[in-house]
């Protein structure tokens, strides 16, 4: 009898606890399930996007092997438009930019190189994207824009390439003394066995040492 009473009491306290907290528990559980589901769904969606973009990118590689510029343009446009959040969008933009540049369409090329810079994932890649965009700006004679990009912080690994391009820009502006300094820096920073070394040397000599 005493036992029953105790049980009854426990039951009552449980009931009142449920009344107070039950709502929160259910809500919490629901939120948790939704979050897990959403996370899973997002993962699934990302993987699906990546797989589809990868497939398209393989076709880009095949088109490049055939020198089929029309196919390259079409396929890279598809990747940039439908899969902008994948790893393939920046490379697609570069390739499209290169093709447009070769065809003399600097304006499209610039937009595409800018797109690649915006989409570059890791910091190492972003610095590469900046370098390539700067090369295009030099072609557009936007010297200040190019120098601004090249003036941004970069890893020591890129120092040689950045300095070389800076030299090219300054040489194009006929700022010989500064160009020489940039080329000298490039010679210092490029790796010992870098094939670009002898090229920079020739450029430097071309400016009278």
């Amino acid at each position, binding site marked *: 009898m005493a036992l029953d009473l105790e049980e009854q009491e426990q039951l009552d306290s449980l009931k009142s606890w449920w009344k107070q907290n039950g709502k929160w528990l259910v809500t919490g559980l629901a939120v948790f399930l939704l979050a897990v589901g959403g996370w899973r769904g997002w993962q699934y969606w*990302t993987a699906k996007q990546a797989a589809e973009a990868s497939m398209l990118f393989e076709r880009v590689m095949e088109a490049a092997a055939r020198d089929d510029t029309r196919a390259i343009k079409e396929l890279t446009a598809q990747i940039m438009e439908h899969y902008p959040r994948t790893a393939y969008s920046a490379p697609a933009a570069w390739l499209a930019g290169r093709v447009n540049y070769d065809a003399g369409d600097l304006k499209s090329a610039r937009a595409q*190189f800018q797109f690649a810079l915006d989409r570059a994932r890791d910091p190492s890649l972003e610095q590469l994207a900046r370098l390539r965009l700067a090369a*295009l700006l*030099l072609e557009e004679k936007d010297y200040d824009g190019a120098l601004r990009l090249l003036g941004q912080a970069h890893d020591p*690994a*890129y120092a040689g390439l950045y300095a070389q391009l800076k030299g090219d820009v300054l040489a194009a502006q006929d700022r010989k003394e500064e160009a020489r300094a940039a080329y000298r820096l490039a010679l210092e920073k490029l790796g010992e066995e870098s094939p670009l070394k002898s090229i920079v040397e020739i450029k430097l000599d071309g400016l009278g040492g």
Partner: protein
Amino acid sequence: MLEAIRERAQGWIARIILGLIILSFAIWGVDWYFQGGGREAAVATVGGTEISQRDFYDALKQQREALGIKPDQAGEIDKTLRKQVLDQMINVSLLTDAALSNGFAMSEAQIKAFLAGIEIFQDKGQFSRERLEAFLRNRGLSEARFMDMVRQDMLLRQLQFAYGEGTLVPASGAERFTRLLAQQREVSEIGYDRRLFLDLVRIDDEAVEAEYNARRQDYALPPQLRLQYLVLSMDAIKSRIEVTEATARQHYEANLARYQEPESRRASHILIKTDKAMDDAARQAARAQAERLLQELRKTPARFAELAGQHSADPGSAARGGDLGAFTREMMVKPFADAVFEMKTGEIRGPVETDFGYHIIRLDGISPGRQIAFGAVRDEIVDELKSQEAARKFAEAAERFSNLVYEQPETLEPAAKEFGLKLEESGWIARGQAQPAFLGHPRLMDAAFADEALNKRQNTEAIEVAPNLLVAARVLEHRPAGIRPLAEVAGEIRLRLTVREATKKAVEAGKQALEAARNGTVPSGLSAPMRISRLRPLNLPPAAVKAIFHADAARLPAWVGVETEEGYRLYRVTGVSEETLPPEQAELVRRDLQRLTAQEELRAYLESLKGRAKVKIHQEALEQKAE
């Protein structure tokens, strides 16, 4: 491991400019990457990935085999190799990490499609599971692991293309550079050759001695020995064996079948070619053609030579009306020989199928085999019997020889006498410099330099320096390690010093002339002017070309000088002319620039990844021998 696949894929890989950097190492590393580490000692940790010791040694072994380096060769080469292998595994790891974390993806379907396109996995142009499974069994690979390997390979290839193809070389820069390559400069030269200064140099004895003292280690001599030695060879044993006429004849009688000249036959044929890759229809067609020819020949056998000339795919015989000449049974493939050796002279038979195709054969003649007389093979038999006997006796003789030189350690005479050997004496020999070469065998050298032989002047044990070649030796004379005496090397030292001094004088004279020329005194003996460009430097040394184009074109004439192997060269630059390259050459230059820049960019990207990831090399695990 993926070489076979690689060959197939080369068509489009070759288009990818940056092949150099990744391709050489993408083959490795593959199995460790997806498996992760943790269970074994790691040689390096790259970000969150460990490179295990076992995988490192697998890759090292593979690379050693590829280069033909033996592990015991070790030394400097191996040290460099270890570093290269580890560097490349780290690079693969970094790039794979970058590919995965950036979101590159490679689905099962893509991998399967790729494998289906590879010839070795195809049967009659279709993907064949059996072929794939046979390939895996052959290499002892599980399918899952192989798929991982291919997956990594494909990912890296995508990454390489994705990041390597975006390189842009500005046309204006390329053009400026091309102009610099095309630029021509007009120069005259004058050489200051060291040969002209040899007579002016006097090297006194003190200088020679000083040089000798300064570089004594160059004249070091290793410890040397003169040996007395005995050689017990199979030939020595053989020469002491007698074979009687009767024994030889008995051997001949017992082996009559061996001493026969085999039957040879002469035939002509017409070949209709097939090969393994042909499908059944093509094979049928070839057979039908052969049948038709056969019908034709049955009607008019005389046309054999003519038809062979027209239809036979065996170019050598076709030109001779199908005639193959005379041959024995062993000289031909089996189905062909079987047919020919069944036929009657003049018979035409076919089609006989071999690996080469379908043959129609005509037998032209038979020279039957015959017995060879004993006299003609007697020497051969005697020699063979002696060899057999010597081989039987050698082991026993070797043991006896070893005992003799051991039991009487103060002399080699008894062994020489018993086996009728001549006691030989060597000249001065050292480790690695022995004449005859077999005396340099490491075990013999060790024995000769050991206390018993060197100081107590006892016999060395009998040592097998080559198969069936035993040598025992004793030391006659010993010269400890030392230095070649001055008198012996003074001549070569003097010559070297003279040349060095003459070169110095030549350079000095050249530099003075340069100085004078810059101040207005033109040296005499300048060559006629020549025009050079960086692309066509004639025969000027590279350093000279560099200096000439480095000279300031605004102030001419300009004078430059360079030191060379032979002394000094002085150049006068009198003119600069801007030229243009033909468009197709300019295009080549632009492509080179593009390729080199792309290479540098990918290298920089990799270096940048390396700088940002935590790469830790565990030196102790790397140096441990885990093989």
